[in-house]
């Protein structure tokens, strides 16, 4: 399913989007299937599947450890696309991976594999807009969204360039730092939403991630005007626990989703 259609559908119902991140293959590909279904049952609107890279510079300890477990269990791009293809879910899927994984497979081949396996969007945390011409061209040709990040350090002129190039949604980085669960929410995060909208006049949905883990944070972000929240480490923490994983994932998803209604 198309990502922006999903956001439009949610908007008509006056709901915020819950975007869930997990790293594919942690602890095994079969577990990932069960976890994705739990996310969908709990009400996740978009699912971001991490395709693990050995040197994830934008990730904090929680997701680093998840990536290491997935790699140790043998996850690779071939298995990843097979897995994505086998997932029979109604929500849009997005792949999050680092640039070298995409580059090594071949930009066009990677984008085609996304199309073939039902992945609607690509997030590349180490690909700034300046380096994105090649991948953006293939994404446009094949109708895959290339999703960019805007950080608290991004100044207005860059925001404009990023908003022009990105599609699907814009990923607002909630805080200066790497991924990882926190329980507070900065005033500056809330003002970033207005700033991006005001500066860029973009119609692309805005979703806020990095450090969002609780229903209170999620609801504050939607109230501040974002179209969606992205939660990763909180789910990954449950996966790392290995106890009642699908049940607890479903429960947390439900709590988070009800906070953005």
């Amino acid at each position: 399913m198309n990502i922006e259609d999903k956001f439009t559908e949610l908007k008509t119902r006056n709901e915020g989007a819950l975007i869930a991140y997990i790293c594919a293959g942690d602890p095994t590909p079969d577990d990932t299937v069960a976890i994705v279904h739990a996310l969908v049952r709990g009400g996740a609107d978009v699912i971001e599947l991490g395709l693990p890279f050995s040197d994830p510079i934008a990730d904090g300890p929680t997701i680093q450890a998840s990536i290491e477990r997935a790699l140790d269990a043998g996850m690779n791009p071939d298995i990843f696309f097979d897995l994505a293809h086998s997932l029979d879910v109604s929500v849009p899927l997005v792949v999050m991976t680092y640039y070298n994984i995409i580059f090594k497979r071949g930009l066009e081949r990677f984008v085609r594999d996304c199309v073939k396996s039902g992945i609607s969007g690509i997030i590349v945390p180490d690909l700034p807009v300046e380096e994105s011409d090649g991948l953006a061209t293939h994404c446009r040709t094949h109708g895959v969204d290339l999703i960019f990040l805007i950080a608290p350090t991004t100044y207005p002129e860059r925001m404009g360039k990023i908003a022009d190039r990105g599609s699907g949604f814009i990923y607002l980085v909630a805080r200066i730092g790497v991924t990882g669960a926190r329980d507070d929410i900065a005033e500056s995060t809330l003002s970033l939403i207005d700033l991006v909208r005001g500066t860029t006049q973009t119609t692309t949905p805005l979703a806020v991630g990095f450090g969002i883990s609780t229903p209170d944070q999620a609801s504050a972000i939607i109230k501040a005007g974002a179209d969606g929240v992205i939660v990763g480490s909180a789910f990954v923490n449950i996966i790392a626990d290995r106890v009642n994983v699908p049940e607890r994932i479903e429960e947390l998803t439900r709590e988070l989703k009800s906070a953005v209604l």
Partner: protein
Amino acid sequence: MTPKTTTKFGIYGGQFLPEILMPAIEELTAGYEKYKNDPEFTAELDRYLADFAGRPTPLYHAKRLSNAYGVKIYIKREDLVHGGAHKLNNTIGQALLAKYMGKTRIIAETGAGQHGTAVAMAGANLGIETVVYMGSVDMERQRMNVYRMQLLGAKVVPVESGSKTLKDAINETLRDWVAIVENTYYIIGSVVGPYPYPVIVRDFQTIVGNEAKDQIMHAEGRLPDSIVACAGGGSNAIGVFYPFLDDADVDLFAVEAGGSNLMVTEKTAYHSASLCTGELGSLHGAMTKILQNKYGQILESSSIATGLDYAGVGPELAYLADIGRIKPRNVSDDETLDAFFELSRLEGIIPALESAHAVAYVKKAAETGELGDVVVINLSGRGDKDVDSVAKRAGF
């Protein structure tokens, strides 16, 4: 804004970084442009290089080594720089740049601890808070350097992720920079990473080649036939090569760590020869030649010389290798050890194991005539730090 075309060397280089760091990288680019020719900055840097680092370093005619290997060998004595390696040329330059840019905290990665020590020295001297990230495996291997850094007032943070070595330390330093970007300056240790680092580090290391060029003209009345330097990230190599790039008759050899052999597995390379055997990919912010598997996962490299143990190489070196201006080579751990012993015994100079790679290649290539008659070896560092591990290997 820097126009995009200038961030690359051919297809290599660029800025493959999280968005959060892009403004900081632009600020660094602007800061470097502003100060690199600033009279006050350059005068202060020159003073530091002379009085603190101990420059110029000699170019020494190694007579006994020349006799043994059958070519006339000059050694550029970077082992005599304060701290024991060429690393301080770069760290003092960047720490000073950090100060001029108003940064109050410097961070760095280190593998062997050589760069970390040089950063700690510069940080102490300039009175700037210094944090060094080091893989916990490397900390175990180089305990004395850990203590040296602490002695110099730096905080050494163990890195427990991945292979717990240099590449993971770089990852962690980038993460620190992401987290505390506003007041922090990242002093990278080689000509690697996102633009403008490969240019900044090269420029600060070019003093090695500039001095060597004057010195060899003085000694020989002509340029050398070849220059040989070891290459990990490639900073000492490009530093000595750069002033000779337009001198087409001077052959430039970058000698990488051939490790125990040139084989690789799914996760591991038994060497660190990324210029010789690597494939195009992006690592730590730059497109370059890297050791990776077929899926693009970075391999854990290895070498007897911790300072060469890196899965990537500077993008400009990759470019210069492609256009044929530099010649990438590699020697094995065993060949390196032989050279380590020979230089010690024949000249009374204990080389760093990194630098011993260059010596080993000269021994190997002198026989073939590839090096011509007059060779300059860039001896990037002294071997005191390696005495312990070599003694253990030798069963002492």
